[in-house]
């Protein structure tokens, strides 16, 4: 008989993976992996802000993500620094400032390791409720903007000339990305969130002929990684979040190898 905490972890993890993977497809298509990492690292600052202001960390994370997204968008036009340098500065500044801010809160009981690497075995039914509520909202928005976002991803000029409201669509995407980071933090932590976004998407690519199929396959790969990682963690007593990411990487390695070999043969 499965322990209840383990069942909760499975339900929470699968929910997060199923939402993160389709979004991760766009992260991969739009070459935004480092942007995702920057949002995730900055989320630690959001957690600290949430604790300082006495509000739910989820709202702190949403706020920090929106600020980072606005800074990145605003600084994209400058030419003095490359985009990767800028994202690197923001990511690590967010992480460092978050850690510094937490040091000012000695009275607050706070599990830093859980924030950095997740603590999926400790999720409550209330956490699960929020994961599924937030996740449904994210998927609903994604379905709504899917075609427009795809058009903008292919070519922004062409999409705009065809009447797609590119800026609002891109902003909506950044918002739902922030929500996914907020709900995924509990499962894999801020340092590993991006892996749940991009690894399942990358694993799905060789077997997908349409964008939609890639999103569905990625969600399946993500859910499989959660199941595999959690059982492995139970079996060998390894940390749950990193085990999920390790399982995702194994799935990717198999998929990539078979996919490349398959292409060479056919």
């Amino acid at each position, binding site marked *: 008989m499965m322990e209840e905490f383990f069942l909760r972890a499975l339900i929470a993890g699968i929910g997060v993976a199923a939402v993160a993977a389709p979004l991760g497809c766009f992260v991969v*298509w739009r070459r935004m992996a480092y942007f995702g990492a920057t949002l995730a690292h900055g989320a630690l600052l959001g957690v600290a802000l949430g604790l300082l202001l006495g509000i739910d960390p989820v709202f702190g994370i949403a706020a920090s993500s929106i600020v980072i997204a606005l800074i990145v968008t605003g600084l994209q036009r400058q030419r003095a620094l490359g985009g990767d340098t800028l994202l690197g500065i923001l990511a690590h500044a967010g992480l460092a400032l978050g850690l510094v801010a937490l040091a000012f809160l000695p009275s607050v009981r706070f599990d830093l390791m859980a924030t950095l690497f997740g603590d999926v075995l400790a999720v409550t039914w209330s956490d699960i409720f929020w994961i599924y509520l937030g996740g449904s909202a994210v998927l609903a928005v994604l379905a709504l903007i899917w075609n427009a976002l795809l058009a903008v991803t*292919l*070519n922004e*000029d062409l999409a*705009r*000339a065809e009447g797609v409201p590119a800026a609002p669509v891109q902003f909506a995407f950044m918002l739902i990305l922030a929500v996914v980071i907020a709900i995924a933090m509990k499962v894999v932590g801020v340092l590993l969130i991006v892996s749940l976004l991009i690894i399942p998407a990358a694993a799905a690519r060789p077997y*997908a002929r349409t*964008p939609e199929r*890639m999103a569905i396959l990625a969600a399946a790969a993500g859910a499989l990684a959660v199941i595999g990682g959690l059982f492995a963690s139970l079996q060998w007593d390894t940390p749950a979040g990193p085990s999920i990411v390790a399982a995702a990487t194994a799935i990717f390695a198999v998929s990539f190898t078979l996919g490349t070999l398959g292409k060479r043969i056919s």
Partner: protein
Amino acid sequence: MPAVPGTPVMSPEARAPGLLIEIEDLAVKFGTATALSHVGLKLSGGEIVSLIGPNGAGKTTLVRVAAGLIAPTAGTLWRRPGLRLGYVPQRLKIDRVLPLSVRRFLALAGKASRAEAETALGEVEAAGLMEHSIHDLSGGEFQRVMLARAMLRKPDLLLLDEPLQGVDLGGQVSLYDLIGRLRDRHGLGVLLVSHDLHIVMAATDRVVCLNHHVCCSGAPEAIRHHPEYVALFGPEAARRLAVYAHDHDHDHDLAGNPVPPEPRP
């Protein structure tokens, strides 16, 4: 009536009936850099205008202004009310990580039905490509698919930014022929950026030579004797303005094989 910069003005009475777009005294600045100044351009239905000019001359900027993608810093842009645009941007590269068939790519153009997509692909003589992956197309096939997507908008005006890039020489000729036929069949206006300084399509009604301002414009044969054209590109270039006045006895299909010529009007 003074027009607000960048806003299409709604006073068609004074304009020629077939006029699609009119740009007057246009300037575009990016920060302190002036991309375009004092540029004027008129284009009517059924007319093909080729833009030539050196790299960085502002050709793409002018097309993007016409497409409504950048607002002019000064000057006016008038578009016929209800004007429908078909746009083919420059250097569209689709990352292989995004799986996409031609059908799905065309479906992104808007609310086009399956049948409309098939008609559009047939019009650019690429009907067989519908289920192909967009990544496996040749340069010429890809530009035809881009044209099909533009045609799906049922355009009055085609804005083509270097539609021949990545297309081999034989394919270039047939692509120019195709653009000419689309113009004839639908009475389209075409504004086309030429990828080559010296070659414009034979069916061009007017060549506009751009170098931040309009250096000169005129019929393809007239322009190569224009002193400003000669000054800009040198007498050697003036001799090399080879107009595509080809008169070949065969065409090429998409695979490059010779085929009998299509009857031309």
